Each structure stands twice: as structure tokens, then as C-alpha cells.
């Protein structure tokens, strides 16, 4: 099973092109006209969005597990 991750965006690199949302198989990312939004509950940790970003604006952080 894929590691649980939180996808984060570097807003200074991101062009809001929508590519990450387009490749996400689970609609875990929405790109609005003025911002980028991630839905943790939908993310399956596949990292397709991170690879696809033409400028490397996305990265993954391991999800903190509650004790």
C-alpha cells in the first residue's frame, strides 16, 4: 500500500496550470483561478501529480500518524 502523504505546493513555483488536478485519479487536487487546494481524504499517495508538474512545484510530506 502506498505511503500516506500530504501533497504540498510551492506557491512561488506553481503556475496554477491545473495539470496536477488533471492527472490525479481521485480528484484530490482542485486548482481554482486564485489558488491550489488539496483534499487529504481523497489522496491515495500515488505521487502522479508530483511527477507530472512541469516545474516541480509539488512535493510530498509523510503524513503524521496520530498516536
Amino acid at each position: 500500500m502506498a505511503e500516506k502523504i500530504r501533497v504540498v505546493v510551492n506557491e512561488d513555483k506553481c503556475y496554477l496550470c491545473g495539470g496536477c488536478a488533471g492527472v490525479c485519479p481521485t480528484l484530490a487536487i482542485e486548482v481554482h483561478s486564485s489558488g491550489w487546494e488539496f483534499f487529504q481524504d481523497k489522496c491515495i499517495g500515488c505521487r502522479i501529480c508530483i511527477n507530472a508538474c512541469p516545474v516541480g512545484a509539488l512535493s510530498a510530506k509523510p503524513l503524521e500518524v496520530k498516536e
Partner: protein
Amino acid sequence: MKYDVVVVGAGIAGPIVARNVARAGFSVLLIDKKPAIGAPKQCAEGISIKVFDKYDIPYDRRYINREIYGAKLYSPSGHELELRYKEVSGVILERKVFDKMLAYYAAKAGADVLARTEATDVIRRDGRIAGIRAKHEDEPVEIRADIIVAADGVESTIARKAGINTYAPPHEFDSSYEYEMLIEGYDPDLIHLWFGNEIAPRGYVWVFPKDEDRANVGIGINSDNPETAKYYLDKWLRDNNIPARKLLEVNVGVVPVGGFVRELAKDNVVVVGDAARQVNPMHGGGMAEAMEAGTIASKWIVRALEEENLSLLQNYTKEWWETDGKRLEKVLKVRKVTEKLTDEDLDLFIQVLSGADAEKIAGGDYVEVIKALLKHPKVILSPRRIKLLKQLI
């Protein structure tokens, strides 16, 4: 708000649908989330000269940067293949003007157009989709419509929220990065394409001239590549000693290059353009494909409204798959074969092909060229090359 048709997205396909449906006398609303329709673009802006007549689009100098007479291809080791026509074969557009003018033509035909209006979700009533929820500036709006057109680009949020499966695996996307920049030393009457697995894995580098010394310089690579498109383009510029200090625009996007959507209409929702992955998988261009799909979709939308029979929308899926879909499936097969070419193969093919061969390939008559290649001594000596080329026939 209530319309016969609401079109989400004012790229290429959306305004064509909105214009055609409005011309038939039905009420249409075209919305786009961007404050300025057409900007930023995600495109190299090249298009065939044929589309203007075919899709009834004025040949307006306001959005034509430059007329193009052919193409020049470069192999990994620098072999060149030139294809030059006597007549104009294509143009480099200014998308930020072109898209806005397409929306203007839709508005002139009777459609309402709202920029900076973002579709957020679909409205479901009694088990069917009755419209969309949107946000115009900070104001939530509900737009009811009999037919919803998802022309919302590669994200295809509305199509997916409407239950249309637009999923494609990661290898079916290209990741693209482009500068509009000052660049010298390239014939500004031709588009220029560089191939090579080190240069642009699965894709190519392009220089599409917009002026004597100004061009879109970009790259597309497989989106599941561990490096970014930006990394490869910057490397190419450095390796070729091309200074990147006069950058007028940076354009970024992900391009669907396969995995065409099977079901293009579901109940009263249709999907067109990039949202339906209607893009040429070989070169990643999708404007002509979006115009074609928009034209077919609008024909069946008008018919469905006239006859008050929404099941006629299914004919859009059927007609597209019997025509452009069938053509693009063949192109996808060719791409899958060309993906296996090594840099040595690319060097050899570009070396031995002539401009006349390139013209035949560009015209779709590639079988004769492949047959000629199969007789070439360097091809005959390689069972792998013979196998690859035979897959193309």
C-alpha cells in the same frame, strides 16, 4: 439563471460549441474561470491554415502572429530534414487574443459569456444533473441548464463530477514547459522540432516563430519522468548556447496524449476538447481536434434540443469515435511505436528521409515511406528496426 446549454471553459472547444448552439437560436451561457479569457495560455500556438475555412473562423490578423511555410526536424546528432511548402501551411496564433475572439464570436452569435466564473460543482435534482454551481468573483451562482458542456481543459473537473470517466494513466500525459523568448538563428518561416531521448524523452523541443527573432520555445516530455519539463528545456538551451535572458512569457501545462474518453456524453452532460483528451498523441496539439469535437458535439446538442430528445447526445460519442476518434487511435499506435526508437534510429531515419518523404508523412500517406525505409540497407541489417517499422504498416 436558466439556459438551454451551459458551457464550462472558454478555450477552443467551448466557444465553438457556444457559438454554434447560439447560432441555432438556443440560449447558451459560456463561462471561464480566468479573468481574461485566453491568458495564460498552455499552448505552442501553431495551427494548420485549413481550420479557418473548415470551422468558419475569420482569418483575422489580430490573432495571427506569423504565417508558416513548413517544418524542419533535427535528429539527436544534428541531422536535418526540411519540409517547405510554397504556400502558407500554418500559422502561429496569439492565443490570448484568439481565445477571447472565439468567445466574442460566441457572444455575437447570441451566447452570454461570463469571465472569472468558476464552475465548482454540478447540481443534481431528482437523479439527474440540472446545472452547475459556480462562483463569479465572490458571489455563488446557480446556473440551471438542460445540457452541460464540460470544456474545462485537462482538469475536466465538471466532467468527472458529472460521473464521466476521463481518467487516463500517467504515461498518457505529457508535461510541458515553454518560454516565449527572443531567439535568433532559426528560419522564422518554419517551425523547428528537435528529437532525442536525451533531449526530450518521448517528446520534442520546439521553436515556433512568432516574429523574426521571437518564438515559443518549449518542450514536452512524458509526465511520469522523474525530471521536470523545465529541467529538460533549460538543459537544451544551455547545451545549445542559447541565452535565456529575454523571456517574455513562461507557459506551463500538462497535455493528454492518449487515453481518449470512451463515453463523451452521459445523460445531459457532454465533454469536449482537452477534457475529453481529444489531442493528437503524436505532436500534442489539440486545437484542431477541439474544433472538430466541438463541431460534432454542437451538431448533436442542437438536434437534441430541437427534437427535445436528450438521448440524441449519444450520437456525439458515436460520430466522434467513428471519425476523429478512429484517426487518433491510429496516431496513438504510431506514437507507441515511435516511443521505442533509439537516438540512433532517429538519426538514421531523419538522415535517409527526404523532404518529399516528410511531405507524404505530413499528409498521412506514410505507408509508402515506411516501405521505402524497409528497403534501406541500414534498416535491412537490423531485425529490431524492421520489426518496429512493420508495426506501422
